[in-house]
């Protein structure tokens, strides 16, 4: 059975995020919030994904290294995008990500009070990435680079739960047909299954957000259709948890969202018992 390997510190898995930092990310984000630019959407998406992934692996007084994490930026330049102490590193244990945000903001958040209501609470919000928009969109180059990084990682972790690559972009590659390197990347595999390539499409087009669709018929343009077709089908256990979390998914649903975040995918990860009444 595929996608069933235990994820543990002895047998970790890996996440690689690819973030579009091209000049077109300066354009407004199409979700109706005209003040928000796509580059803000990308920064927010990657920071929230990292935050939730770290929290998923946190135990009292530390973070367990269930994942190795990398972030690749592509725009005017392409390569590892972490700053500070993690600068230039391709993949780092998640505990190092946890203790190396560039800053930590205080934000007010509506939090479940455990009795069906909400309360305002001050929470810390770590920032690793600031909004960047500059240059072209060398997505093909980034996907080819991801293939190289993941091939090396898989060689040293051949029996692990397959790496997950999340590409956050407006979809407009300027260096060719991204589906070709995407296919090569998706063909990499551990003994537990193929690499999973998921895509977050942040578009200037308005319209309803779409999460984990099974078909591209309702997607608004060629870029979203391309990204949908590049995306891996959600493995069975992720579909099951997605359904439990209230998402409408089918056996052909893909790891793709349009003008939406993908923080929910962190909940689909299985690193042990998750109480169904843990919100």
């Amino acid at each position: 059975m595929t996608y069933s390997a235990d994820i543990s510190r002895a047998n970790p898995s890996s996440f690689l995020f690819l973030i579009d930092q091209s000049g077109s990310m300066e354009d407004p984000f199409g979700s109706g919030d005209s003040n928000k630019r796509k580059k803000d959407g990308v920064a927010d998406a990657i920071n929230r994904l990292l935050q939730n992934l770290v929290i998923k692996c946190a135990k009292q007084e530390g973070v367990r290294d269930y994942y190795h994490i990398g972030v690749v930026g592509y725009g005017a330049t392409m390569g590892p995008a972490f700053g500070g102490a993690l600068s230039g590193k391709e993949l780092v244990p998640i505990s190092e990500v946890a203790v190396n945000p560039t800053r930590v903001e205080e934000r007010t958040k509506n939090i479940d009070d455990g009795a069906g209501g909400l309360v305002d609470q001050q929470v810390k919000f770590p920032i690793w990435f600031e909004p960047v928009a500059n240059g072209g969109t060398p997505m093909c180059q980034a996907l080819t680079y991801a293939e190289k990084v993941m091939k090396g990682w898989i060689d040293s972790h051949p029996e692990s739960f397959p790496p997950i690559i999340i590409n956050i972009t407006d979809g407009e590659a300027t260096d060719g047909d991204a589906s070709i390197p995407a296919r090569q990347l998706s063909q990499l595999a551990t003994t537990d299954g193929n690499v999973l390539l998921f895509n977050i499409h942040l578009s200037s087009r308005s319209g309803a957000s779409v999460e984990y669709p099974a078909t591209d018929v309702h997607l608004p343009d060629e870029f979203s259709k391309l990204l949908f077709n590049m995306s891996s089908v959600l493995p069975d256990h992720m579909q099951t948890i997605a359904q439990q979390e209230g998402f409408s998914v089918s056996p052909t649903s893909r790891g793709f969202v349009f003008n939406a975040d993908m923080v929910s995918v962190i909940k689909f990860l299985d690193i042990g018992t998750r109480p169904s009444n843990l919100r």
Partner: protein
Amino acid sequence: MRHNYSSFWVPKRGNTADEYEDAFSIDIERPESKIIKIAIADGSSEGFFSKIWADILVKNFQRNTFPDVQAFLEHCREDWRIWKSNYLRERKLRERPIQWFEEDGIRKGAFSTLLGLSIYLDDAYWEATVVGDSCLFQIRNGSLLHSFPLCLSESFDNRPVLLSSENPLSEEIQNAILSSKGSIDEGDCLLLMTDALSAWFLKEIENDTDPLKPILALDAQDEFACFVEILRDEKGLHNDDVTLVKIRGQ
């Protein structure tokens, strides 16, 4: 009728003994004992201080004189609040402030199953109450007589409703509290297991592969650790903390 009690536990592969998050407690049976209370709890891997909460649950079950579940849980939560406030004070003293990634887990607290078993010695019957997927199996004449609360290996998933250290007793949890009882004959054996071993046990029975003989033959903790390692390697036992309590009538 008097009983023999034995307990066995192994942490998840790759974890240390300190990271084992199940808990169990067993009364000492004395000549004057009328009721024996035994409990196991499985602290969830997502959640903070799950071991502490699992310990609080089994210990409170053992000294339980509470009129109902609500009162029982209130008492457990009071113990939890005291422990947590001591812990937070101690972190300050150690100059180890709460990190951003700990805030969410500390706010949401711990979650655990609880399976509590009471054996009424004079009247020769048992009563059990459970929240979650820890299981009780009653064996009579070498066969499975009773399986509670789950009867099929496919019923186990990684998403049970569990007792929370922080949230009030919701309708969801109230609906998840299940009870059962049965008589005890001489020579009966009662087995309490956390989920991974329970799922394996039921699967073996479904496959007509007798799991009772090796379980009943287990005698020492070392032997159990080896047994679990073999099951993990050869029988697909899910990598999780594993706890087994055996009670045999004499």
